């Protein structure tokens, strides 16, 4: 059977569509377009925000990833951390420190990084020469100790923005290009300030008069030269040198030597302003590292006696309680605890102190 082609079926189908439906559908369509526009705008805003956030995250991630890897790629410069020991062979090498300073180490040089943090950068140059530059004017002190010269050890201190070169081959030599550098000769404890454009080298006669630093601090044991207490070395400078040596030993991990020097300073120069700090340091060393809690109590008590209202007094009080707690001395612990709480009841440390003697 075939359809009649001349008569189209399409013409005989009634489409149920009215003008009212046309109007209604047009209104719905217009409303839908408006709604779509609002949705699109909202989606665009969210997408923009998400894109901005992604970009921000990407930038931070890129910077975090890029900074450490950039140093070795940009030049022969790497970051050095505390404890690093660097020895150059035939070529010059550069290193960066966390404070933004840069060291250029000459060939055949030997450098030991003792400390590199927010409070101080301290290095020891055993051989060769180095140039140090720091553009930023940060007040983190820089300390270069030139060793290998026996009693003629020299320390150079600088802060802020500076640039200087020092060598420790046959003799010590310093040349300052920017800023100023304080040179401390350990043997004589002489301190010389060298400014930009100046050079410095130890005087020949000084080298002849040098005495070992250990004997310089203990004049009664000196066998050569005049007793230091009556000549160049004053009491204050002796205490200063002793403190520096103790601190240096502490930084180097020579805790027994550090404790001995702190104890010496405490007993020989109790009126020196460094004595309370030395005594406190001694107490911490004995308590935390040397297993001498009874000695720690003595040191902390000494701090409180010579400087009862000093900056270390609260810490010394706490240290004394910790030490007696370590000794299982409940009576002493509670006695020191009461003493502490009567003075520092409102301190942030008070809650911790209240728990220290429990369970003894």
């Amino acid at each position, binding site marked *: 059977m075939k359809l009649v082609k001349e008569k189209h*079926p399409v013409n005989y189908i009634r489409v149920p569509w009215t003008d009212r439906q046309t109007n209604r559908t047009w209104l719905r369509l217009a409303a839908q377009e408006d709604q779509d526009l609002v949705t699109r705008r909202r989606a665009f805003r969210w997408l923009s925000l998400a894109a901005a956030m992604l970009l921000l995250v990407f930038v931070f991630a890129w910077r975090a990833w890029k900074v450490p890897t950039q140093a070795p790629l940009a030049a022969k410069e790497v970051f050095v951390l505390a404890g690093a020991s660097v020895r150059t062979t035939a070529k010059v090498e550069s290193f960066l420190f966390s404070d933004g300073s840069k060291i250029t180490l000459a060939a055949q040089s030997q450098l030991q990084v003792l400390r590199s943090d927010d409070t101080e950068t301290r290095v020891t140059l055993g051989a060769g020469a180095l140039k140090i530059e720091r553009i930023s004017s940060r007040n983190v002190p820089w300390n270069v100790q030139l060793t290998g010269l026996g009693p003629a050890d020299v320390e150079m201190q600088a802060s802020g923005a500076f640039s200087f070169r020092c060598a420790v081959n046959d003799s010590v030599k310093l040349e300052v290009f920017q800023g100023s550098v304080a040179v401390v000769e350990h043997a004589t404890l002489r301190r010389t300030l060298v400014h930009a454009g100046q050079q410095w080298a130890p005087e020949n006669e000084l080298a002849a008069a040098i005495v070992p630093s250990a004997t310089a601090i203990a004049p009664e044991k000196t066998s050569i030269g005049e007793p230091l207490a009556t000549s160049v070395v004053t009491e204050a400078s002796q205490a200063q040198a002793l403190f520096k040596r103790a601190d240096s030993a502490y930084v180097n991990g020579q805790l027994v030597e550090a404790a001995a020097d702190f104890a010496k300073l405490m007993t020989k120069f109790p009126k020196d302003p460094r004595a309370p700090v030395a005594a406190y340091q001694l107490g911490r060393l004995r308590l935390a590292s040397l297993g001498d809690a009874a000695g720690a109590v003595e040191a902390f008590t000494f701090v409180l006696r010579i400087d009862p209202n000093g900056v270390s007094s609260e810490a010394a009080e706490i240290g004394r309680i910790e030490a007696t707690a370590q000794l299982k001395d409940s009576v002493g612990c509670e006695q020191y605890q009461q003493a502490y709480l009567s003075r520092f009841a409102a301190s942030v440390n008070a809650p911790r102190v209240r728990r220290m003697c429990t369970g003894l």
Partner: protein
Amino acid sequence: LGLIAQNPVPLPERVSDIDIVLAAQSGDRRAQEQLFRRYARTAAGIAFRLIGQDIEIEDIVQESFATALATLRNLSAAEAFLAWFARIVTGKTIAVIRRRRLLTRLGFVRAKEADLEAIISKDAPAEIVIELRALYALIDALPTEERVVLVLRKVEQLSVDEIVDRTGWPLGTVKRRLTRARERLEECLEGPRGTGRESG
């Protein structure tokens, strides 16, 4: 497509299709409305004849125009608007048929029989009435694709090439589907279960 043009919607203004399409492409809101008013009934007709019932016709018209107006800038030849728009309407209608079939199978909607008396005009010749009754009684039993090609061929009177253009399906596929659907229709018309024969 020629047949669609034979049933023109009364024009709100005597402006050519090409001018309206060009103006609508440039974003003229009044031209877009004019385009809508001119072709809303055409779109409803295409959808209604494919579905066979007055179901979701307004939605199909709205969605078809929403798509058409959003993509009108992509239309390179303004004179081909009607063919292009008919493709959009057909696609939307096929999607609706498929969705309704799925929902019916899943039991979410109830199948509705076509009201043949309402569809077919009173002044239709007897042979056309028989043909249309048989066709609309059968199409719900056909797969969607066969149903579409059958309606496009038998009702819309499109050639095979025009069906290919309208649906976007390959020529061979259209021919195969059309042959199968036509066989079923002829079986329906000649067999004892033929609705058209009973009522004709």
